[in-house]
């Protein structure tokens, strides 16, 4: 649905995005993660046709953004990271304005406005002046605005910043639901765990480079991430385990505590199979296995060194 080829964005001499290639298939929720200044906003703006890239192309549903921005704008709903709202309009007027910009009108528009207000939990504010809404409410209104014309593609730049924990949860659930009904969503955040359970795919950016992208598992494997196994050994044979596993290349660390063994292993199904095979071959009986994956936070920190672009 969204295809980016060799995208480079420059502000004078500063390269904000460096020849990024990316494909987001239709119906995917794609999370873009990176520290401040990584180039997330720049990339989104390029896709939304709000800036002219120095090199490369972005296409949405096969339409080049630079060639036909109006056609692309019809398909997308863009929520900027910093945005404003027209303080003197009423909430419904604001949504009506944007709905009409996309060619909607009459009762279908009115129904849609009610829908998005319900989704974003703003019904009670329908007739309020926007100037009187709280920051989080404005954030939700902007999200409602991005959805009012039922776009196929949503570009959400940090949609949850400034929203209370409950609101964050709701926004996550909303994005999840958008994914379920087949929308393509590109959502950015600084916080990886916030995205990991709702996103089908993740891209990690740093200093303008897309350092990794794919499903969570793919990224973990690609990074040589590890998992920690807690193995419960029967027959008091725990002491012998380190001996049995000596020389096993996927094993990073091993520790024995009573009847349990803590083994740190490469995050690879093959490695686990091999380990179990070795133990069983050595006649060691296993009472139970608990697995603990490397924390997402660790992963993120491992990938990004926190340097600003």
């Amino acid at each position: 649905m969204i295809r980016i080829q060799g995208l480079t964005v420059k502000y004078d001499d500063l390269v904000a995005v460096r020849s990024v290639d990316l494909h987001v298939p239709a119906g995917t929720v794609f999370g873009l993660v990176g520290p401040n200044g990584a180039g997330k906003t720049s990339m989104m703006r390029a896709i939304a046709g709000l800036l002219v890239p120095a090199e490369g192309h972005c296409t949405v549903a096969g339409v080049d953004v630079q060639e036909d921005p109006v056609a692309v704008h019809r398909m997308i709903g863009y929520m900027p990271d910093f945005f404003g709202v027209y303080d003197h309009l009423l909430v419904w007027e604001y949504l009506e304005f944007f709905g009409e910009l996309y060619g909607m009108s009459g009762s279908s528009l009115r129904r849609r406005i009610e829908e998005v207000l319900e989704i974003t939990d703003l019904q009670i504010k329908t007739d309020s002046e926007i100037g009187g809404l709280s920051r989080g409410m404005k954030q939700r209104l902007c999200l409602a605005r991005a959805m009012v014309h039922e776009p196929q593609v949503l570009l959400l730049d940090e949609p949850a910043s400034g929203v209370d924990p409950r609101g964050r949860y709701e926004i996550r659930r909303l994005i999840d639901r958008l994914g379920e009904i087949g929308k393509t969503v590109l959502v950015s955040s600084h916080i990886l765990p916030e995205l990991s359970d709702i996103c089908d795919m993740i891209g990690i950016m740093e200093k303008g480079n897309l350092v990794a992208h794919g499903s969570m598992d793919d990224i973990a494997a690609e990074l040589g991430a590890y998992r920690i196994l807690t193995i419960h050994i029967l027959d008091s044979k725990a002491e012998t385990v380190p001996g049995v596993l000596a020389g096993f290349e996927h094993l990073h660390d091993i520790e024995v505590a009573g009847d349990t063994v803590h083994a740190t292993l490469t995050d690879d199904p093959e490695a686990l199979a091999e380990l179990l095979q070795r133990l069983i071959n050595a006649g060691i009986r296993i009472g139970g296995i608990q697995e603990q994956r490397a924390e997402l936070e660790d992963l993120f920190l491992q990938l990004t060194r926190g340097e600003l672009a």
Partner: protein
Amino acid sequence: MAQLVNKPLLKKELRQALRGHGALIAQNVYLIAFFVIAVAAASSHLIFSTALAWRAGSAAFWAVMMTQAVLAIVVIPGATASVMTTEHEQKTYDTLASTPLTSSHIIWSKMLGYFVISGSIMVVSVPIGAACFLLGGVPLAPALLSLVVLCGAIAFATALGVYCSTLAKRTAAAVPKAVCAGLVVLLLFGMVGQGAPVLGAVSPLGAMNFLSREQPVPVFNLAVPVWLASLLFWAVAVLALAEAGVQRIQHLPHQRLWGVRWRVLLLFAMLAFAALGSVQALGETATPGCAGGACCGTGGDTDPEKVPQALAIFAAIIGHVLVALVPLFAAGLLTPLDKRRIAGEKTKDYSIWERMFGLSLDAGARYVMLLALLTLVIALLGMLLWGGEVFGDHWDAIVLGFVPIFAAVWALSMGTRIIGFCAWPRSDFGRKLVCVLLFGALILVSVCPAYVLARDVDEPTFASELSLTPVLAAGVVSAFHISLFEAESAAMKALTEWVPMPVITTVLYVALGILFLLAKRRMRQIWIRRQAAAQVSPPLPEDTHPAPSTPDA
């Protein structure tokens, strides 16, 4: 039309602007103000005799229409200059730009919206106009046509404001640009129109003047109804401004460059046209600077003897407009280079304008400078081509007229730098206000000698008109005085027997500039000392806040 104007956007602009009591109050104040103007204009005629009621009607009607026309050009650009900048300031621009709207939609819808809003405020004066109508003395056709002309002026003023709004990201930067541009148009067309009736007639004031006399405009050898000339001109101007605005918001750098060249070319063409117009008009008549072109004939041959004189007057008028605008621009020019130099910038990074005047000039100020240089070139070129032997007699009038003008610009910009260095007033707005007030006072002071000098010039109309555009009237008038009119003023003769008047004026302004320069030096030292003190003293409480680092997950 649907290609250009987007209905929802239009609706939104109207909703936003007309919400609240602002529009209602504006309309009422407007109504009362114009009622007062109409009564004042009518009363002088009514006092004498009721038989003169028709004159009172006519006077009141045209007073109202002319004031409105001038008001439109002066106020509307400033009021609409925030149209695009507030979208940037409120950060609503990105959301708007990511919808299917095109840049044409945005510019044209906003222009139409604000045209309607400005128009709706002005519409309240229609009852006053109708009342004047009852007194008699206002023929129907010119009265209706004056409304057409007014609409044209409003459309132009709105387009100008919206265009200026695309030139800046902040309202504070766009408004002075728009107001200056409106004043340039009014002054340029009004004053150049003194010499070139073709241009004078399209100025709203000139057009109303022509209409009230039911007089056609002489366009070279044709007589054109003034409303047609005016409307055509404004329509072209609106189209050009809208197109320029549309180009500005397409984020395409190469088009912008072309836009600047195009505008400079247009400026040059306009000036050349105005110069030609002056030559044509003045070549035919004996009286230079006839008001509103009222005394211009149509047709006839141009007297080559008078060409250089016409060009000299033209150049002098432009020069006056330029100097009258300096304080206005100065108000927008409060970024002294020295602050930037202290901040580590190198002198070679500055543009030629910045090095000349010691200020970072914005686009508007650069245009004024350009205007002055272009006028000078046109005037000299024209004299070279047409002047023949008389050229030798008059070139010094122009050159000597311009030297004091540049001296004044220099002096005033030095003054601006002082205010730039003062920490008082604290706010940007306050400093700008002080700037305008100070320079306004300076101008007032120089009006007096200018008027005294001008009073003695042979041509009373010309003299009084020149003294209306102040500051350096003295310099330029004297240049004319010596070279063109050779008046019999005893005071002038006594003075200029020894030193030419422009030299005196230049010396005066250079002295003033040096005085400002010295004051600026002092201010700079104080500023540097204060900066140094701020660095060693403990940081201000605001700086000691811990960086907000806790993620709000």
